[in-house]
């Protein structure tokens, strides 16, 4: 695996060179990464990439610029692998951004031009960004009775103070190894503020678990870490988000992967994850005051209606929850639980849900 990415990049170049020598229109074959080419695999319960491919050819005015960009990114990755360094995707963008001679045009105008090219290469070569020596900004924190080895340093996640251990961009086994674990489950929390509350209350100590936040939609690192914690340490995964369509979407991405990174679903998705809350049904069950709920807006309603049709929201519990949300017409933020007291979430809500094993599938 270590030598392979470099070799794959070189092969890509050789393939183009061969086409040039044969006087053929240079052609890169890439899997299509849009909704039209993904499907939900019932067996693995993951979003997967279909087998449709696209040709990116040089002699097509709509492709030429992207063709150049693809090869530029490939060449740069090969260079940094050979130098044995790692760089951020933003650094890569700046390293490759230059003005094309005789024009006002840059090779890359924005980082949002180079980021999708990286994903194209990952999908085309079946390699991870991280093994191309690229990393994104770190996002997400962990606390709990877990000891890891991070780039050779031993980290005890129960002794990381109030901030926790920051999840690195690359959590592949060559960088992160699990040394010791005493936790019985992992609680994934959408919001950093709620994570901090639980960390301060030492929730993980009382309930013997790992608490992890992705700060909103979790980045690849956090999703890959959740995947590894489940697959390698056999820990159940419970997800805690706001009771709104966006929160439920975050849960679905953790569980079965995303459309954009569907080619990585095996590594990033955790189909066994369970949803612990919040739900709009909790409002009545836990006697939460109606005045802390928020009225659904048009976007929420449209989104919830669409979700009713998604395959992965077909289980009857989810259908009930979505219909209930549409019926009552409100959503609920995690912080709203504080209306029942600042420690309600850690001392009452979560313990009760875990004890009664009341999860949505």
């Amino acid at each position, binding site marked *: 695996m270590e030598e392979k990415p470099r070799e794959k*990049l*070189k092969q*890509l*170049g*050789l393939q*183009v*060179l061969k086409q*040039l*020598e044969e*006087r*053929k*229109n*240079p052609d890169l074959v890439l899997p299509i990464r849009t909704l039209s080419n993904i499907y939900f695999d019932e067996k693995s319960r993951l979003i997967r990439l279909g087998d449709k491919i696209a040709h990116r*050819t*040089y*002699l*097509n*005015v709509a492709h*030429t*610029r992207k*063709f*150049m960009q693809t*090869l*530029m990114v*490939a*060449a740069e990755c*090969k*260079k940094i692998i050979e130098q044995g360094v790692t760089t951020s995707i933003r650094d890569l963008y700046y390293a490759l951004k230059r003005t*094309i*001679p*005789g*024009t006002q*045009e840059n*090779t890359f105008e924005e980082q949002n031009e180079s980021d999708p090219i990286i994903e194209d290469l990952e999908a085309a070569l079946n390699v991870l960004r991280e093994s191309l020596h690229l990393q994104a900004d770190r996002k997400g924190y962990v606390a709990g009775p877990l000891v890891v080895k991070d780039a050779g340093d031993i980290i005890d996640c129960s002794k990381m103070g109030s901030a926790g251990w920051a999840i690195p961009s690359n959590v592949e086994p060559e960088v992160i190894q699990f040394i010791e674990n005493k936790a019985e489950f992992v609680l994934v929390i959408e919001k950093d503020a709620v994570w901090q509350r639980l960390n301060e209350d030492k929730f993980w100590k009382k309930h013997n678990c790992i608490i992890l936040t992705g700060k909103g939609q979790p980045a690849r690192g956090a999703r890959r870490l959740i995947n590894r914690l489940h697959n390698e340490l056999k820990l159940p995964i419970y997800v805690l988000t706001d009771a709104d369509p966006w929160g439920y979407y975050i849960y679905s991405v953790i569980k079965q992967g995303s459309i954009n990174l569907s080619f990585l679903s095996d590594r990033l998705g955790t189909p066994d994850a369970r949803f612990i809350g919040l739900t709009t049904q909790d409002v009545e069950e836990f006697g939460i005051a109606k005045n802390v709920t928020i009225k659904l807006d048009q976007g929420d309603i449209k989104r919830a209606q669409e979700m009713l049709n998604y395959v992965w929201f077909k289980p009857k519990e989810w259908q009930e929850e979505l219909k209930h949300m549409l019926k009552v017409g409100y959503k609920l933020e995690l912080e709203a639980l504080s209306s029942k007291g600042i420690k309600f979430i850690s001392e009452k809500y979560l313990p009760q849900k875990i004890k009664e094993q009341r999860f949505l599938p």
Partner: protein
Amino acid sequence: MERTAEELAREQREISISEFFEKNRHLLGYDNKIKALLMIVKEAVDNSLDACEEARILPEIYVKLEEVSPDVYRIQIRDNGPGIVKKHIPRIFGTLLYGSKFHRLRQSRGAQGLGISCAVLYSQLTTGEPVEILSSTGDGTTHRYKLKIDIKRNQPQILEEESLDLGQWHGVQITFLAEGKYKEHKQSVLEYLKETAIANPYAHIIFDSPTGRVEFPRGSEELPREPKAIKPHLHGVELGVLERMLMTTKARTLLSFFTTEFSRVGATTAKQICEKAGVDPRISPKRVEDEQVKKLMAVIKETKLIAPPTDVLSPLGAQLIEEGLRKELSPEFVVAVTRPPAVYRGFPFQVEVGLAYGGEIQETRLYRFANRVPLLYKQGDCAITKAVETLDWRRYGILGDMQLGKPGVPLAIFAHICSVWVPFTSESKEAVASYPVILKELKLALQEAARKLSIWLSGKRRAEYQAQRLKTFEKYAEETAKAIAELVGEPEERVKELLVNIIRRGKNGGETEREAEAAGASGA
């Protein structure tokens, strides 16, 4: 003393002609001071061009406008035509409805003998001043007249008359002093002369305007062929005209009246008409009674007649139209179409269309002409406008919301109808009447020209697209070659050479054809 009915009638007629003009200036085009200036120049220049063409002389026209006091202009027009023989000069300029062209059918600019004398009358009515006329037939003598129109008698009133020696010059020069206002907008003397230069590219026109000299150079040394005069066709004759012709003919019998005064009527047909109408073909035309004329008219309408001869017209021809458009508008592309002659109401006519695209043209504009005279007013009433507006220009790849007089599509539409009798909607000759057959001919001509423009446009778009493609491929070649070279460890120069080869070859490759078509279809 009793006066005869004829005397009374004559007097009445004389009074009505002059009063008619005073009260109905607008009918003849003298609506306002700006337009009056245009009308005077137009009448004189039209006459000059007619005279030159008839004498097969390449026209040299000189026009000068000078403001002598507020809103009063000295207007001078000089040509190099054949000149006018001495005895005709006073009558041509000093009598309304006197002209050489009124009793014949022949394609020409003027026809009624009304135009130039109206100009004289207008200047006389607004300033009280006579006009000055110089004329020479090239015999070394130039005749100079100062004259007015005796309005009551509809007769020239000669104020000065002399003979001069101005050398071998031939032609006519006329000088007016009239009220007017000079503007240089779309319906101005300047525009009229510019459009005249388009439709008469064999003319050389110099215009000394109040704002400076403008010269319209000659674009062609070739005059269009000479039109022929024809006799009227029975299907184009109205009751009143028939009655008048019966009164003035020199024919002895009704039968010979039909065969000699009209085209395409043989003895058999003439006899048939008379018999069907129950009129003796042997009687004198002067003795045909009113009731009989009506019967004859009814029979004529139902009689099948051979169409009039159509080789009597003088279209400009595609080449002259293209030359005219090229020299005055400097377009990138120009195409012209001349339709074969056709007939409306017994009158032969012919339609021509030219399209000029791009170059210095900025907007979509319609240039209308009848017998080579620009039509500047009443665009909305004109058959030509109708034909242009009903054509689906988008079908011909002329994109965008094309609107006459608006920028967007740089297209000049030239349309010319020539006929021995152009059917105008009014006496001021500003719009062509919409006879179905005329509309049809206009449409066919426009379609054919638009098709040719469309072919050129798609070729141009294709070429532009190909150039753009090549530019794109070349633009990214350097960085692409560099990246490939880095990936495979080959020299950058070699990779670039290979890539450039592919680009050159791919320029006209199979796959690129499809792309170009797609781009054409989406209007790229």
